[in-house]
């Protein structure tokens, strides 16, 4: 057993941290937030030039064949700097499933472009039911000759409006059981397809989400990812990786908020002394540290299990529930300790505060995760 990262991983972290600090200061984060697309093509290009888009893509497709843990390290550092953009979406929800379930042709078509930073993907899973389970999928795909026709509405789809392709989860057969896991298929849908309409809206986390309406959208059969009707295991794996990636992003942000707050407490003076000298302030900072450390532990332990292919549904759900709530509490305490300034638009704390709530909701909120855990422990 070994809790340490490899030297290479530590180097990757250092260079990622340097990059994020230098290339994505809070000022730029705010600019990007205000922009239509919610990401910066220049920044995206720079990241691609560093090889980040190809980090987990096999060498044969133009990547460097890194591990899932490497990817998480990167995402943790992006979380630390609130770096906006469709990285998680394109890599974790796009590249990884294509690598896992794609045909040779699909890999050939998509992976090199992703690796070069020339393609953005978005996962079109959730619908107006706002749930993350198989049974809630109502968008349907009907086969007709060599193609499928998709109809229905997806909602809360992050970055769909700037994506080149949407990975759409659709029902290709009515499910016989209540859980609806049977009969789902995945499609790589060209975002420029006729009949596809994306309407973005703003959210607390500053990531644009979209309503995506499929109105007789035609997808060639070769764009089906994985087996017909048996798409759920791919989705499930994607959701677990997405959840852990969101945990990584959260713990990056959480650690930064702890550091910011501790530093501020040592500097801010009230009643003639630094507020760091008040016991209640110290104890609140201790709680923040404890949340950050425990969230980080359990995240990487679950991530490791996931990347080793070990059973990990309980660990992933536990990590997601705990890291989400930890991030929320940390940002809340951090804002409180900063005083009123922590609640202003100009202060960086708000960036984290808002992302913490968004992270909680992504890939299943704590109630959803607790239900997963309940099933896993035999309830």
């Amino acid at each position: 057993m070994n809790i340490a990262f490899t030297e290479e991983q530590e180097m990757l972290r250092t260079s990622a941290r340097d990059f994020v600090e230098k290339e994505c200061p809070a000022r730029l984060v705010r600019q990007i937030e205000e922009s239509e697309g919610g990401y910066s093509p220049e920044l995206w290009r720079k990241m691609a030039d560093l090889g980040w888009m190809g980090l987990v893509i096999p060498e044969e497709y133009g990547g460097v064949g890194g591990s899932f843990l490497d990817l998480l390290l990167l995402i943790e550092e992006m979380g630390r700097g609130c770096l906006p953009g469709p990285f998680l979406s394109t890599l974790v929800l796009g590249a990884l499933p294509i690598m896992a379930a794609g045909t040779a042709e699909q890999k050939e078509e998509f992976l090199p472009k992703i690796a070069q930073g020339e393609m953005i993907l978005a996962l079109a899973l959730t619908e107006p039911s706002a749930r993350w389970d198989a049974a809630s999928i109502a968008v349907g795909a009907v086969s007709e000759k060599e193609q499928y026709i998709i109809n229905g509405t997806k909602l809360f789809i992050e970055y769909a409006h700037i994506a080149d392709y949407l990975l759409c989860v659709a029902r290709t057969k009515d499910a016989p059981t209540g859980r609806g896991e049977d009969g789902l298929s995945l499609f790589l849908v060209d975002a420029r397809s006729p009949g596809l309409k994306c309407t973005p809206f703003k959210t607390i986390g500053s990531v644009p989400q979209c309503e995506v309406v499929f109105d007789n959208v035609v997808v060639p059969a070769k764009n089906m990812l994985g087996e017909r009707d048996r798409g759920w295991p791919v989705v499930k794996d994607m959701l677990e990786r997405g959840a852990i990636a969101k945990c990584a992003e959260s713990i990056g942000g959480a650690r930064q908020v702890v550091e910011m707050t501790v530093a501020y407490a040592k500097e801010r003076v009230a009643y003639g002394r630094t507020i760091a000298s008040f016991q209640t302030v110290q104890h609140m900072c201790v709680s923040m540290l404890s949340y950050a450390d425990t969230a980080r532990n359990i995240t990487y332990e679950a991530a490791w299990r996931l990347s080793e292919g070990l059973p990990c549904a309980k660990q992933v759900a536990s990590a997601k529930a705990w890291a989400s709530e930890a991030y929320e509490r940390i940002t809340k305490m951090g804002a409180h300790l900063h005083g009123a300034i922590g609640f202003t638009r100009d202060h960086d704390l708000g960036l984290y505060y808002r992302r913490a709530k968004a992270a909680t909701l992504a890939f299943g909120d704590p109630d959803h995760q607790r239900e997963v855990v309940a099933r896993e422990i035999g309830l």
Partner: protein
Amino acid sequence: MDFRFTPEQEAAREEYDAFFDEVMKEAPENWLGTLEDVYSTKEGNDFHRRVARMLGEKGWLTMVWPKEYGGQEATRVAQLIFLESMGEHGAPGYDTQGVGMLAPTLIRHASEEIKREFLPPIARGEVTVCQAWSEPNAGSDLAALTTRAVEDGDDFVLNGQKTWTSGAHFADFMYVIARTNPEELRHRGLSYFVLNMKETPGLTIRPVLSMDGHHLWDEVFFDDARIPKRNLVGEKNRGWYVVLSGMEHERSSLGGWVIECNQHLKKLVQFCQETNRGSEPLAKKPLVRHRLAQMAIEIEVGRSLQYRLAMLADQGALPMHEASAAKLYASELYTRFSETVMEILGLYGAVTHGSKWAPFLGTFEFLYQMAPGWELAAGSTEVQKNVIAQWGLEFPRPY
């Protein structure tokens, strides 16, 4: 012990309800019933002023004022009944800073001349008032403030910076605390002033946006701002005692959050009955029932605390720590409430105002960002606990 409303109180409540039912028909589209409505947009502020004038005409702004200043010397309970009706309707018109904070302070501490100048427009609902107390380096520790006021002829000349001044961008009057004796440390050597912003040169107002992007607060800069000497309230260098009496009013009047939560709760109950997520309405889900019921309980507790405070005040026995306890409870409830609602709304709750997918016009998305700020405003949670510890439990000053 008797918690019954008198027949007069019942009748008054009905009158208020009818009045606000009518008034709120004219509320701007997207009216949410929170403080943001009043301070964030011109349209909202105009509506507030319109309602304020109507309230002024009815005499409802000044019920608890002494008769000699146009009040009715009504009980605090009577006033609370009015404020509850207003809160339940999400109606504006009652300027807490003016009617609730400045006016009682002036009545107690100001000269007749100042009272005659400032009280009538407040009573008529013609003006709004803002509080220039906090500074970038004097928040919880207000006594650390450094804004200077120097005597010069018939005036005081002010220099310095204030911040977290709610609604300064729409306000007419302002009350300020500044240092008149720089030789004295902390709370000694401070003085309290009231001023008409339109008549005060050297005043600059700059917006401070809240986390969610609303414009509630301002920075206020005094650059050789001149205020006539007669605008001093209370004695020179003894302004801290004027501040303290105002704080009590502020803290005891902040129970509005409890009523605001109750207003939101009612809407939420209806929403949960009408909204399916999965196979059944949210209202049938045990976790939703559990959470909303807990909120209903905590609102009930908070409401009971408000009435206790009003009754104690009517008996002339409102200890400082009771006002702090009520402020503390209400602000923490407000935060928990905002959290609970977000738990229930899920992904929808995170959608920002402006999208058709945002339930309640996005109210809770911004409340989630605003509510915890009230655990800092008007004395942070820690400050309130210190007050209660020292005044309510007779503990020593903590290390």
